[in-house]
């Protein structure tokens, strides 16, 4: 198997994830789409790691996994906090940053 297959797959998954982030408004789903993008990144990293025969890339992916877990924890914490405060679960309604 040539490496570009993996990279193209990775790009495809990344784009799908990005589309999800752009078109969905439920924060839970947006977080899920972010997971997709992170997974795509990990896939590319692993492919290169395999190609170069260097396991450093695998460690990097592991660290990314941890960071992703942190993101999930904080993101879902925010979702729960929003729900508790009876805020609509719609990112379009969170507009306090408007200049």
């Amino acid at each position: 198997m040539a490496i570009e297959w993996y990279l193209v797959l990775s790009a495809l998954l990344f784009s799908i994830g990005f589309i999800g982030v752009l078109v969905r408004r439920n924060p839970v789903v947006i977080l899920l789409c972010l997971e997709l993008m992170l997974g795509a990144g990990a896939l590319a990293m692993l492919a290169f790691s395999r190609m170069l025969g260097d396991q450093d890339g695998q460690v990097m992916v592991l660290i990314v996994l941890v960071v992703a877990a942190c993101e999930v924890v904080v993101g879902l914490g925010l979702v729960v906090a929003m729900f508790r405060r009876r805020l609509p679960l719609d990112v379009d309604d969170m507009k306090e940053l408007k200049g």
Partner: protein
Amino acid sequence: MTAATWGWLVLLFPLSGSIFLGLTFRVLPKKIGGLVGVGAIVAAFACGIAALISLQGEPEESRHVASSIWEYASVGGFQIDLGIYVDPLSVFMILVVTGVSSLIHIYSFSYMQSDAGYTRFFSYLNFFVFSMLLLVLAGNYVLLIVGWAFVGFASYALVSFWYRRETATKAGMKAFVINVVGDIGLVLAAILIFRELGVVDYASVFEKAPEVFSTNQWEVVAICLLLLLGAFAKSAQMPFHTWLADAMEGPTPVSALIHAATMVTAGVYLIARSYTLFELAPTAADIAAWVGLATLLIAGTVAIVVTDLKRIIAYSTMSQIGYMFVAVGIAGYAEGMFHMMTHAFFKALLFMSAGSIISAMANMQDIDKMKGFWKAMPFTAVMLIIGAFALAAFPGTSGWFSKDEIINFASLRGGMYSWMAAGMLVGAFLTAIYSYRILFRILPGKPCPEAQHLIDTGHVVHGDPVNPHTLEPEDTDVGYPGEHHHIAEQAPGMKIGMSVLGFLALFAGALQIPGVTEAVANFLEPTFENSAFAGVLPTEAEALYGLTKGGLISIAGLVLVWFIYMKRPDLPAKLIKTFRPLYTLFVNKWYGDELIEFLVVKPVKGFGQFCNRVVERFAINGLTTGTAGIVRSAGGAVRDLQTGMLRGYAVLMLFGIVAIVLYFLIRSI
């Protein structure tokens, strides 16, 4: 274990004590806190003795060990190690510092007993000892500066220890600021040393300096003058002397430890440590000696007239450090260090006795109000007498040996140094007068009400907590002596600390009897063996002549003071009347504060106001309003993009990514 290992341990104990107490002072029972504080310092003292023993086991030429645990910085040939340098001089300082500190800790264990900030106090005190030891043990100028600055902070924290007392916090700030001025000098000196020599650690600096510098070359003079700036500020020499008297706002053990025995002698240590540089720059060394002489005379005259007990002792400290500066300035290093040691003993003793008396006076410090303590507090009185006699260099006491050795050395150097010797003899007479004055004002006579109360009831007067200077009522929640005072007669810890120091103040002179023991000079010899003046030693006859001279001056002072205060009690008032202008000058401390106010504070303030009025208003304001205008209009343009829509931002980001990738793609074609 090697001497270096013991040196590290000496540093470790006070540091861990300080950190432990600092973390737990809210929950720790008082007693344990005090014990930990005392224990840490006593352990450090024991390690100091071990370092001494292991150093003495080495042959004389290899009695210096440099040890490094960590490379702090190494950039382009510039190397700083976190290293210590153990040699006779640093071991000598360690022993004096930890020894006196141990006794003062034991004293504080009782003295501070009813203070609300008891454990916090020991944490600070341990931190101070650690900083001082770091300063002494540092193996290069950079680490020395670290210790130097730590000591300055510890002094600030301890002077402002009763932080609800405004005068105390102000005094702490004053001490800190003046010390920082000196720190700047020290930092600049270190930079200059590195620029000229390319190294900062002691061994290499002293090795290279004689090869690189010729005598009195301007660079080396500049280095020494900058070092002196630091030394003068830390050791309260002219013109930086004003902070020391105010620093007496701190608790009495602090005055005894920091502002008499250890910290203020750091400047002396610095000069002795850098003696190779100072011998290459005789001009700077002379300046150090002359400033020391001026300080010792001026501080001596002030000490004769002020009436605040602790301030008298503070001014006498300045004056005695003046002696040490003269000694190290004229290359009498062992003499200077010896005087530093004896001074640490008797001055700490004097402060402890003063603390005991001040406690009995319910925190009043004015000697005009004190009378008849000989009957009320015999133990304290005896200790006060020992301290004062040693300070006045009464024959047989330790001060007699050390002070006259300095004067002797000066006259041996000849030339203008003989004039210094004459000046120091005048200073010795002044010293005798103010030392005995303390005794005759406080001890004899009909007991004052507080002393009488103590005799009658056996209890100390418990006055309302007030600030002794402004008489404002005190806030007692956060650390104040409290209503319960502790005097040496009733507190065993104070008694132990004072009796050991009293013994040392009396007999430590035996370490260095000319022609008989000379232990201190012999011990320090390996450090100073390269000095050009190592061979300048008085003959036995000269030494005896000098000692006789000094002893006679001291006795003359005793007789004079006895005559003035005991025989003719009306005389002081008359003398004040006759010499009114002189008295005013002395009482106002030679207008030192006013001079600094006029020469430094006013110009700086004026410059600040000028900046405020002109630079700030026109230059800076114009600049900022202009910038703000630009930013505001630019912001207005960008604001429309800030929809607050999360997904909008994501699209913009994606657009950016697509554009960047496109750019790279096109470029790669």
